[in-house]
């Protein structure tokens, strides 16, 4: 037995203890939890630990191997950096949600069976929702609600797949599944929701820019990367992933170019980067899976860094739309510098981290002779530089002077950004340390002259295109607007369904109310007030109409009424009616 705790335990349980502490103690706890959890992780040897019997199978709380470890390491690092960045936040909801969210992601990547995976998968959804709701604006409330609904649907899809898979194979072990059975498709799509596949993606671009400033830093890290881990574990070499990843890498860059909210631009570029990872897993060679995992590792740092810089801008100015920003390089020089490092990393400039991982995926595609895919990825590489690499720093810190004057970001934010930026450069300059952690042994060399020259030319000419288009006035001006995406289906389409149902079902309801409740019962009540008398009146009227003789209808009615009131009918009529009813009954029965 080992002297350690299950990997997720410290962050999840520790996170729940956070509200019992206040002020400095709470800040210290928030920073210490990821550190203690990381030290705990280092105690774990390779293999499966905490194996308990469950139903007909077993649950495995920790499966430690190279693939789960590298995700475990980077998740801890990012959890620490996010906590440092969020140190000023004195809001128990966010403090708890952020810590538990990181713990859930760590629990999911170490889960050795599907039930454990599912539990942490759902915990991710719940804690993430609170990070969105904690913004406490109406828009955040809506976005958080939609986020929750989409992920609950995805989670149920995953659960359905897991149950089918377990009942078919008799094993709940979370290992290579591969596409084939119906169960595997359910699991595949369930993971795909969290991975933000095309048409399943709008929860990401909808919710991340609406979350709190610090919440977005946490959010950008864990959900999609946990899904990448799950795909790398269960579906490596699945051809469908190549198409899905190619689409993910390409389409968001068009949206990113016209998007005004800079955090939403980053959300689109997040999908674009995850696309590279999905492609890498789909190709399924040792090089490509290494590339996917390494890119996930780097993306956690540079995407986190970019979100942090935009968060700092938002924290200081209260604005995030490109139309409102500009010229901040004077007020926030450090933030600006860190943003440029993040931009260079995501654009895969030589000596920055993106360069040493993205190239692995590109080269794997070339080795597999996937020409169209290679062209799409190259297009996406140029495009990502265009929108994330240039647009983000340019519109926030340069462009026209917005007149905004503010203080530099707070120290703890600068520290978190600084550490991220230094790591981006270190990984870019000394990639061998990253490579040694990858699931497959590799002697990959990113720094060949051909590769450096090619990438530099690609990026410099992308920058040239940006410059010339901007100077010529062709570059699309930032406009305050909403760009419709696939979430239209449930945001507007949902309302149309609601309207249709309202019209159809409430229409039926209204009609039924009018006819049966108001008219029919009213007449029925009137009739049964005096059934005998009413039949007589009706019969008399029919007689008058048929014969045409006006027999003083009103007088007859009065006579009938008074007879009914005093119940003074001749006995013979009563007997006659009784006979009629008995006859009717005899016929009917």
């Amino acid at each position: 037995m080992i002297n350690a705790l299950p990997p997720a335990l410290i962050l999840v349980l520790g996170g729940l203890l956070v509200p019992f502490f206040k002020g400095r103690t709470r800040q210290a706890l928030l920073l210490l939890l990821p550190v203690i959890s990381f030290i705990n992780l280092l105690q774990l040897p390779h293999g499966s630990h905490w194996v308990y019997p469950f139903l007909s199978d077993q649950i495995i709380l920790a499966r430690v191997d190279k693939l789960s470890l590298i995700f475990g390491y980077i998740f801890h690092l990012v959890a620490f950096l996010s906590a440092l960045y969020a140190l000023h936040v004195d809001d128990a909801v966010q403090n708890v949600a952020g810590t538990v969210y990181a713990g859930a992601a760590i629990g999911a990547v170490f889960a050795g069976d599907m039930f454990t995976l599912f539990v942490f998968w759902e915990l991710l959804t719940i804690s993430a929702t609170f990070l969105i709701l904690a913004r406490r604006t109406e828009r955040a409330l809506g976005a958080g609600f939609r986020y929750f609904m989409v992920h609950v649907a995805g989670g149920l899809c995953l659960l359905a797949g897991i149950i089918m898979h377990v009942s078919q194979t008799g094993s709940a072990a979370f290992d290579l599944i591969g596409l084939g059975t119906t169960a595997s498709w359910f699991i595949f799509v369930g993971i795909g929701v969290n991975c933000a596949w095309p048409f399943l993606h709008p929860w990401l671009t909808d919710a991340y820019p609406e979350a709190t400033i610090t919440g977005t830093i946490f959010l950008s890290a864990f959900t999609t990367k946990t899904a990448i881990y799950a795909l790398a574990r269960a579906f490596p070499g699945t051809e469908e992933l190549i198409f899905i990843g190619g689409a993910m890498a390409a389409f968001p860059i068009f949206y990113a170019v016209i998007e005004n909210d800079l955090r939403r631009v980053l959300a689109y570029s997040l999908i674009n980067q995850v696309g590279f990872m999905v492609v890498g897993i789909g190709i399924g060679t040792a090089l490509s899976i290494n590339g996917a995992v390494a890119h996930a590792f780097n993306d956690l740092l540079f995407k986190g860094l970019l979100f942090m810089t935009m968060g700092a801008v938002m924290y200081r100015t209260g604005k995030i739309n490109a139309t409102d920003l500009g010229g901040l390089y004077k007020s926030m020089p450090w933030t600006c510098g860190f943003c440029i490092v993040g931009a260079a990393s995501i654009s895969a400039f030589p000596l920055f981290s993106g360069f040493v991982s993205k190239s692995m995926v590109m080269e794997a595609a070339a080795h597999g002779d996937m020409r169209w895919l290679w062209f799409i990825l190259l297009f996406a590489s140029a495009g990502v530089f265009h929108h994330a690499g240039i647009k983000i720093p340019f519109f926030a810190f340069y462009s026209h002077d917005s007149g905004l004057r503010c203080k530099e970001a707070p120290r703890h934010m600068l520290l978190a950004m600084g550490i991220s930026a230094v790591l981006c450069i270190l990984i870019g300059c000394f990639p061998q340390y990253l490579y040694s952690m990858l699931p497959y042994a590799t002697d990959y060399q990113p720094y060949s002259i051909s590769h450096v020259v090619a990438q530099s030319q690609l990026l410099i000419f992308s920058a040239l295109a940006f410059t010339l288009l901007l100077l010529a006035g062709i570059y699309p001006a930032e406009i305050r607007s909403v760009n419709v995406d696939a979430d239209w289906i449930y945001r507007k389409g949902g309302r149309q369904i609601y309207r249709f149902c309202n019209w159809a079902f409430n229409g039926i309801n209204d009609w039924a109310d009018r006819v049966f409740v108001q008219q029919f019962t009213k007449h029925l009540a009137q009739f049964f007030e005096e059934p005998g008398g009413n039949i007589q009146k009706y019969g008399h009227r029919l007689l008058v109409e048929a014969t045409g003789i006006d027999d003083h209808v009103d007088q007859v009615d009065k006579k009938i009424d008074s007879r009914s009131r005093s119940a003074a009918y001749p006995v013979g009529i009563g007997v006659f009616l009784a006979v009629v009813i008995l006859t009717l009954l005899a016929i009917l029965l």
Partner: protein
Amino acid sequence: MSKKPISMDEELGMFDKPENVKRLLRIFYACVVISLAIDIFYHKHGIFTWESFFGFYSVYGFVACVILVIVAKFVLRPLVMRKEDYYND
């Protein structure tokens, strides 16, 4: 936090002076020319044959970005852009 008018006494930033912007652009154009010129002296070795064509990556990067912007501006934006309160009714 506040949006106050820029005071004239404020020290001008580096890019407030047009000559600095021009200088920067000149340096940038020089980089562009140099990076393309490398292709004359150094023959790239790629996996695909077209990778070693003269200026392949430069042309691809430039054309890709122009297409990206043109499509985003003239095709995507008219299709998807709505007023800011589109979802608020």
